[in-house]
């Protein structure tokens, strides 16, 4: 029986001498869940089940951000995606359907979309998988330094985001306004 401390420092032994760290094991598990829930969200017939799967997908990605030592982004993902976007999509379904639990008409899955998706995957892996190195998540970059960067006057990230959101708000109101034919 291996000591937990030893496991944490050296990783878990797999296939003889090679070791896989617990962080990597956690990442593999989270990655499998992400791909599975992403696919299920697009393949199930009931739209409400789609919302449930996409909610799990967003929570799963936020766990990956915590794994990468980006806690602020993890919390932001939970709040904005798992919270706001999921509820907004559910609201959209509730408004546009007579019966909420009604199945979509079956749409045939042709060979062309699958082929295009596979080609994209192979192309991206072939082009980008050659990059050398590995990320070393470090907790030394605090939320305070991230906020210093975000509210910096020289690179006004949040100012630009606010302007985009304001124009999007005006556009959304224009789209759903009353009094059009």
């Amino acid at each position, binding site marked *: 029986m291996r000591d937990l401390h030893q496991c944490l420092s050296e990783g878990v032994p797999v296939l003889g001498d090679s070791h896989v*760290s617990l962080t990597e094991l956690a990442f*593999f598990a989270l*990655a499998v869940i*992400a*791909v599975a829930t*992403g*696919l299920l*969200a*697009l393949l199930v017939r009931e*739209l409400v089940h789609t919302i449930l799967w996409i909610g799990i997908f967003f929570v799963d*990605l936020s766990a990956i*951000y915590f794994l*990468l*030592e*980006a806690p*602020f*982004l993890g919390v*932001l*993902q939970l709040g*904005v*995606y798992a919270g706001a*976007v999921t509820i907004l*999509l559910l*609201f959209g379904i509730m*408004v*546009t359907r007579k019966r909420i639990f009604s199945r979509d*008409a079956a*749409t045939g*899955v*042709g060979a062309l*979309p699958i082929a*295009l*998706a*596979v080609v*994209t*995957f192979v192309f*991206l*892996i072939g082009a980008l*998988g050659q990059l*050398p*190195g*590995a*990320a*070393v*998540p*470090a907790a030394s*970059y605090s939320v305070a330094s*991230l906020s210093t960067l*975000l509210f910096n006057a020289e*690179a006004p*990230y*949040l100012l630009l*985001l606010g302007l*985009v*959101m304001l124009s*999007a708000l005006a*556009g*959304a109101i224009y*789209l*759903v306004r009353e009094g059009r034919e």
Partner: protein
Amino acid sequence: MTTLPVGDFLALASGLVAISIFGILTRRNFILLLIALEIGMNAAILSFVYFAAFPQCVTAATCHPLTGQAIAVVVIGLAATEVAVGLAIVLALHRIRGTTNVAEANSLHL
């Protein structure tokens, strides 16, 4: 010190982009289309967060190590905005055509 190899993350991000493209090409419901777009956006955000922790970036003098995370914050905000505008289009389409099927949205003149 724990390290996360670049291949694993790019495999996950590429897989999510492939799922997103598959969903955009096959689904006909506007809301499912928005969800497929969100999956693709999340792949991009994941890549930004991953490369923010990349040592080649952290040690470079011209690159702030948190730039990737800052851009990820902006992209998350943009994605939320996109869903809001998308749902406004869904509601307008539903009121005028009585459907959320994108195949029936064949005119820009609402």
